[in-house]
């Protein structure tokens, strides 16, 4: 909107600049500068105190020849796939059910999202208590059924599954996004299908899922990106153990930093960003190209 027809005046332009300046300063300081910072320091030997020394790609070479770092990458990919291909289908299933407006659906929608507003610290403590071998909820339930208990987080065979399971079962965030997309589908499509005698299952596969394929691809991509950057629940529940069974790139970044190996920590940060970006681009192009449903919706 302009005060006259002569275009943006100098004073006006100054006003725009002043209004944008605070957000841009913070954005540069906490998004762009860190990006440049880790790109450069990842090529350096640096303890945070000593003078940094340029060493090329040595940090990266070191990381990729370190078997525990490889376990971290592998675990992040497991996180990403569990989030994208277990969490999202579950969220979709619940969204499809709630979209048909069963009794209490609004209450359930609100309740399913509740864990998302509770801190990772509190949830981690909670799940540690659930998995606790001595008095935990899970072993208690198992003993009610006459089954033996298990040290879920202490056993390398079950620790990763246990940590991922508690995160993947919190479907609220994606369920709400998918539910909104379903609600946006025009009723007329279903009315026509109803006249043709299509069953609920047919309607779901022929109308609902193709119509929300865009949202599903976005949700899978986002969920996988979150899986790649996973940190808090693992840090708080197992610290990456036992014996690196649950370690992730984020955990290793923190440990490197704790050991004053800032150059390597930055390299992990850079790998995290790169792998995350590659995964997002790859998944998006794979899913929207080879998925006939996505094409049908376009």
């Amino acid at each position, binding site marked *: 909107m302009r005060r006259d027809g002569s275009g943006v005046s100098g004073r006006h332009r100054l006003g725009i600049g002043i209004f944008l300046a605070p*957000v841009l300063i913070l954005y540069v300081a906490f998004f762009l500068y860190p990006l440049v910072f880790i790109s450069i320091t990842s090529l350096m030997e640096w303890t945070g105190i000593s003078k940094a020394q340029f060493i090329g790609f040595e940090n990266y070479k070191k990381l990729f020849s370190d078997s525990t770092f490889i376990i971290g990458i592998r675990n992040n990919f497991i996180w990403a796939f569990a989030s994208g291909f277990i969490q999202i289908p579950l969220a979709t299933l619940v969204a499809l059910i709630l979209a048909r407006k069963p009794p209490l659906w609004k209450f359930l929608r609100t309740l399913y999202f509740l864990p998302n507003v509770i*801190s990772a*610290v509190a949830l981690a403590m909670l799940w540690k208590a659930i998995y606790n071998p001595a008095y935990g909820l899970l072993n208690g339930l198992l003993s009610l059924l006459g089954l033996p208990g298990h040290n879920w987080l202490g056993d390398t065979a079950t620790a990763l599954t246990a940590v991922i399971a508690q995160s993947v079962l919190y479907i609220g965030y994606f369920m709400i996004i998918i539910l909104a997309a379903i609600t946006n589908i025009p009723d007329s499509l279903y009315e026509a299908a109803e006249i043709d005698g299509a069953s609920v299952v047919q309607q779901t596969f022929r109308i609902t899922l193709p119509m929300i394929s865009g949202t599903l691809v976005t949700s899978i991509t986002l969920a996988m990106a979150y899986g790649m950057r996973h940190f808090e629940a693992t840090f708080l529940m197992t610290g990456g153990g036992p014996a690196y069974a649950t370690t992730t790139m984020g955990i290793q970044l923190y440990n490197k930093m704790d050991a004053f190996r800032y150059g390597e920590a930055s390299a992990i940060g850079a790998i995290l960003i790169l792998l995350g970006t590659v995964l997002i681009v790859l998944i998006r192009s794979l899913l929207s190209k080879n998925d006939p449903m996505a094409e049908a919706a376009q």
Partner: protein
Amino acid sequence: MNSVQRTLKQQTASVLGKAGVFIVLAFFFIIAAFPLVWLFISSLKTNLELQISPFTLPKVLQWSNYGNALKMANLPALFLHSIYVAFGAVSLNLLVTSLAGFVLSREQFRGRELVYTLLTAGVLVPIISFMVPYFTLITRVKLYDNLIALIIVYASINIPVSIFLVTAFMRSIPKEMEEAAVIDGCTFVQRYTKIVLPLAQTGLVTAGTFCFIYAWNEFIMALLLTSSSSSRTLQLGIRFFTSQFVTDYTSMYAAIMISIIPSIALYTMLHNRIISGLTAGAVKG
């Protein structure tokens, strides 16, 4: 005969379908609610009761667990720190994003789309990869172990989400009101303070709620950027309880309950705003 079989088949299918639906909804109900309910009940038991029978109700409600939690972990001070950080972060975040959102939604200028895309693309960045630069930056500006550092960091991390929500909301405000106000001699700044800002309240509340929940719950940056108990937040506090309450689990549960009450209260009051804020992005795909 054939049609009878068909209806029978349909009825069985619909009964099975209904049972399946019920099981799915009940399962996720339990996942979302049961741990919290169990935590609350456990926080009112004695430690002995917890160990012998983790699922029964307490014989006598042990409200003293809450008293213990408040005393032993210096919880009131931590609570105040978290309130200060969360309100500070929300205020700073809303101030800067509402200024920018006003310009991005109401003004025409070169580079507008670029600025908007750049700011909102920030959600794609994994913030944990920035641990080293954040630590270095905060130390250099002498804000290490200062709650102000957390305010600035949390407000900044929430810029992408808030810009998205605030700008979208401001775009939906009709321009006619501003045009009339300009004819009446309203200046650039007055258009922001007197017209757009009051009308954008709903959008600001939504963005502020997201920022508050983030700041209230954040753990890793608080761990990284503070060290002394005078700048310890609630999340760090309950993390350290594990070592303090070595055997007193029920008091630890009481402390965790205290730490999540604000989130649950806020969510109960504003869940419709939060849900509509989440779905604002869903429609675009």
